């Protein structure tokens, strides 16, 4: 059980990572980030409840809140880019280099 829950968590994490790394659509990448964070939450919640450890459970809550804040920042950035008429595709953001 432990292994499978952790396996799911890690798989989700890797899926999120893959989304972030592979996708160029900024919104999809943002979703990937969320997926990574929340996959960790799964593992934390499961492990915390396994050991009846309130610390981990409260941690999961705090992490959710922080993830939400992060999404706000991310979305606002993406929207701003969109509003400016610039592409929301990451491959367009390559003026800064070298």
């Amino acid at each position, binding site marked *: 059980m432990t292994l499978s829950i*952790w396996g799911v*968590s*890690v798989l989700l*994490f890797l899926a*999120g*990572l893959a989304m*972030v790394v592979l996708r160029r659509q*900024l919104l999809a*990448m*943002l979703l990937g*980030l969320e997926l*990574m*964070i929340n996959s*960790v939450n799964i*593992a*934390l919640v499961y*492990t915390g409840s396994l*050991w009846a*450890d309130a*610390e*981990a459970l409260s*941690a999961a809550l*705090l*992490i959710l809140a*922080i993830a939400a*804040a*992060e999404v706000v*920042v*991310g979305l*606002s*950035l*993406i929207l*701003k*880019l969109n509003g*400016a008429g*610039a592409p929301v595709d*990451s491959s367009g*953001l390559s*003026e*800064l*280099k*070298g």
Partner: protein
Amino acid sequence: MNSAAFPVAVLAPHLALGLGLFAALLAGMGRVGERPLRVLVVAALGAALALVWAWHRTQTGGPLIRSDEFSWLGQLLCYGGAIPLALVLSGGDISAALLLGSALGMGLLAVSGNLLMLFIGLQFMSLPGYVLVSRQGRPRSYEGAVKYFFAGGTASALFLMGLALHYADTRSLALEAGSGVLSEAGLALMGAAALFKIGCVPMHFWLPDVYESSSPELAGFFSTSMKAAGFLLLMRLVALGPDSALAGSLPALGALTMIFGAILALRQQGLQRLFAYSSISHAGNLILGVGAWAAQGARAAGAAPVFFYLAVYLLMSNGVFQFLRASSAVSRGDLRGLGQRDPSQAAAASALLLSLAGIPPTGGFLAKFLIFWELVKAGLYGALAVAGLATLVSLGYYLGLVRDMVFEEGDRLDRARQASLSRSLVWVCAAGALMLGLGPSLVSALARALGGGG
């Protein structure tokens, strides 16, 4: 340690910063000019610094909050590094609040005794950073902010995964050493996040882009406060496992970072990007210091060189970025002939550049010397050789800039020169960097403060 004595003293600086943040937002409701806001931010930071200094002997170790030498030294560096930015801050109340929020995050990171608190601190300091970059109003600000955001987000996700792994091993979120492979993997993942923050190769790619798209003073803040916080995080993690894979990889990573930053800085024409790579190279040097510190057992007393380096770098980096602001120079060509147009600025900037290059009798030399010495003591001769080589390469651009400024002739820039405050800041930073070099007794004071040395 009893829980009754909740460490008010330890959290007082954070309180001051929080109040400042609140006041800034309040002020935003009225029509407050930039100047009062700057005063407010500086006052908050100054108060925080004063409070840190006043109660720096108070040591506690609770489940969430921990105050030790690293905490107060780290806070001094983080708040101090923000002051030059605060002094010339633009962008109204939002920027002020973001800056104070970021500083508050660093403060939390510095006093956290718990992995979760570390994460909170990390995010607290990073999120305002993304927004600050995006608010620069420069052509590429959004690009920089987006890159920063996604790279930083990935890093914090990695940190979280590491946290979970560490938790699975130790059954606790406290800053405690684990024993299994899980906790070591957790350390590695969390370490990756820390290395990302400090711009360690190969996780540094975002850094030049962000610095380039920021205003110079903001880049100065990133390269000093933010880096100091990152190093604090790294050292906290390394202290958990001085013989972990993370700690063991630091010399190699540091050497790589140093040489990589140096050769890339050599080819830059844009000054902000150049100093971004220079800051990567310096980060490499610091990573080497941390690696050597870890190799010698990661005792608090041995960390003096790293902190001294951070302190000197705080002055040097803020100094050069303020110099860029004051001279409104964008590319290397803009600096030509500065020595004739503005000798005093050129002199101060030359002093800063020589200090960055690590030439005696400047603080930069002493800092680099101490790190090198730690490497010798730790027997890390290979890393030392690479570090020496990188220092040599770095002379190519630091001295090259001095040459451009002082030896070459050039035309007057049509861009207007910036406020005199930056000019004075350049002077102050240069003088400070020189003073640190002339007074090695500061190092011994630092070493004594950390409980060793002498």
